[in-house]
């Protein structure tokens, strides 16, 4: 199917936005699990929410190159917002979800100005600081958040007024999955748009991005806001499906875990969060069954090896495999974070 350069170019640009067979397979399995794994809906719900959270981090790390050690700030904010909204205003899940998402986005917008300056390390520390301060606020505002005891008395109404949250976690999983899927569709469109491409230029080389007329700061603010909204949605899903919010939602380990998951799954192709969340949870389950107290040792070892081998090279291998599975001869390796 060789054609004029124009045709080739059009085809190649379209290629990135076209759905691959494996993607279909993935979502088929995810939806199939509703019937195939009825006794695992609770853990599946946890995984899909974590995956959505990791995907939100991918938007800023994998596409715009902003490393964050405090992404749980938005996850936690969304969770508390949804929980408090259900208690104080109305228990309708969708209303709460939408508002929590918007509110988290607003928080992301405000704090985005803090991450514009500085490079990797300063950003890591600033994001970490923001999450720590928010966590401390949640701890202090006991009258609103329940403090260290956690937020209690969250009672959710049925989804769409039809589906009650059941004990088996079925409604919870289906609800989280559908929401995640919709958000994924939006994210997938965004990352292959001109806007998404411009983010990748910022990730690879902010200096040059600016020199070809891309307003770097504004793009970063936009994507940071978007990622915060996504993280907030994940937090809201957690609060609504577990009907409880505790300070853990905003804790450092939540931010660190999601970063690890994303890195294990690979950045910059949206599915990294899903792969990472699944691998992480399964590993956690397997290893902690085998050696409950010391499973962090093995996670640490995996990280060390992952970095030593080189995340890029690993991702490249995955890309090669991926291409081979699709029967395409030409793998296009991807770089992770811009760095020169």
């Amino acid at each position, binding site marked *: 199917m060789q054609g004029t350069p124009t045709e080739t170019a059009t085809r190649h640009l379209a290629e990135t936005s076209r*759905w691959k067979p494996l993607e*279909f397979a993935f*979502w*088929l399995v995810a*939806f199939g699990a*509703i*019937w195939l794994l*009825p*006794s695992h809906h*609770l*853990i599946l*719900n*946890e995984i899909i929410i974590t995956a959505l959270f990791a995907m939100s981090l991918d938007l800023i790390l994998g596409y715009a190159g902003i490393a964050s050690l405090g992404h749980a700030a938005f996850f936690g904010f969304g969770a508390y917002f949804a929980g408090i909204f259900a208690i104080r205003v109305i228990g309708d899940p969708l209303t709460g979800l939408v508002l929590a998402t918007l509110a988290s986005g607003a928080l992301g917008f405000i704090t985005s100005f803090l991450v514009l300056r500085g490079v990797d390390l300063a950003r890591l520390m600033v994001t970490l600081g923001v999450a720590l301060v928010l966590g*401390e606020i949640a*701890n202090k505002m*006991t009258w609103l958040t329940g*403090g*260290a*005891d*956690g937020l*209690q008395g969250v009672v959710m109404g049925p989804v769409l007024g039809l*589906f*009650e949250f*059941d*004990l*088996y*976690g*079925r*409604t919870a*999983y*289906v*609800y989280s*999955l*559908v929401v995640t*899927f919709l958000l994924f*569709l939006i994210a997938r469109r965004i990352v292959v748009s001109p806007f998404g491409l411009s983010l990748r230029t910022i990730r690879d080389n902010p200096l040059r991005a600016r020199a070809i007329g891309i307003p770097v700061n504004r793009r970063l603010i936009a994507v940071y806001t978007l990622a915060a909204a996504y993280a907030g949605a994940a937090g809201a899903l*957690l609060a609504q499906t*577990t*009907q*409880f919010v*505790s*300070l*853990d*939602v905003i804790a450092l380990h939540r931010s660190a875990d999601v970063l690890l998951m994303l890195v294990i799954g690979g950045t910059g192709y949206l599915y990294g969060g899903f792969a990472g969340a699944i691998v992480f949870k399964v590993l956690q389950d397997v290893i*902690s069954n085998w050696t*409950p*107290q010391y*499973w*962090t040792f093995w996670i640490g070892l995996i990280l060390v090896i992952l970095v030593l081998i080189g995340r890029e090279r690993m991702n490249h291998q995955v890309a090669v495999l991926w291409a081979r599975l699709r029967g395409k001869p030409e793998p296009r390796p991807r770089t992770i974070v811009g760095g020169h």
Partner: protein
Amino acid sequence: MSRRNFLKAGAVALGLALTAGTALAQDAIKIGLILPMTGPFTSTGKQIAAAAQLYMAQKGTTIAGKKVELIIKDDTGVADVTRRIAQELIVNDKVTAIAGFGLTPLALATAPLATQSKTPMVVMAAATGIITERSPFIVRTSQVVPQIAGPFGEWVAKQGMKRVVTVVTDYGPGHDVEKWFSDVFKANGGQVENLRVPLANPDFSPFLQKVADSKPDALLVFVPSGVGSQFMKQFVERGLDKSGIKLIGTGDVTDDDILNTIGDVALGVVTAHHYSAAHDSPENKAFVEAFKKANNGLRPNFMAVGGYDGMHALYEGLKKTNGAGGEALVEAMKGLAWNSPRGPMSIDKDTRDIIQNVYIRRVEKVGGELYNVEFATIPNVKDPSKAK
């Protein structure tokens, strides 16, 4: 397959998922024990799991002809995980009862589930007053903070102390101790100054300096157990022990699990608690000995006894119901009374909370090791926060 089809599939899935349901008969009596086996609260989990296993080893694994099975799960001390695990145990493993719960938020997160699924829930560690009010299926065998801190406030006032400074870590249990001790102490004519220490706090010197400035009769401390030793060392380092300020607290700071590693700085610290490994009774001697034997010489602490008694409550209840769970089991556990290693105790038939003796102890050296030696008893204390 297009994206639209996908959405359709999702909608269909939603419908189907909600109509299906499962119900299975149960053969064995399964008890789900949810504990923090990793993370910062590992020691709580270890102690309770060891005690529960010891109880089953001693009392057998058959009740009413059915086999009792203990399923231990790690929740890493994170509330949403605790809840998820409890839910899985209830719906997948069809457990008769859930137990454990190392921290207050973990118990509170799970309480609505117990109500919804009518599953008895035995709280073996978490100590905040409100827990048992959050579900009629909760029974507690650990302690209630007001139950310890309140009577202690009265006892301290009776010793003639007029002014106390409290230093508590700024989180739920700390606030509880501060409130109940202070209220009762003030009601008995004392004066209190409250200080709170942030959870992440490496150096206690500013707080101890404030205490030194204030020169109270006693300093009441409540900090997470690992940090307690540091606090005591700095207390001694500042010479506060020689300044006539008595160091007092709830038994959490002189936890049997770490008392020996704290070292001699703990000598003379007066605390109130419901359990000491040095409690002088045949039941306790047997318990401590068996526990140490089964666990490499590990000394049982108040967490262990909470787990041990929790299993006892479940066993006795199940015997009465012939192995049935649900409301019957809760009913059966209400009003139970027995001689625990900690001393006489019972389950309040109205509040399902624990009624037990509170002991006043002093850290002393016994046979080369540090122990909390009991020297006064406040008998049969109900949780004052519920005794209306």
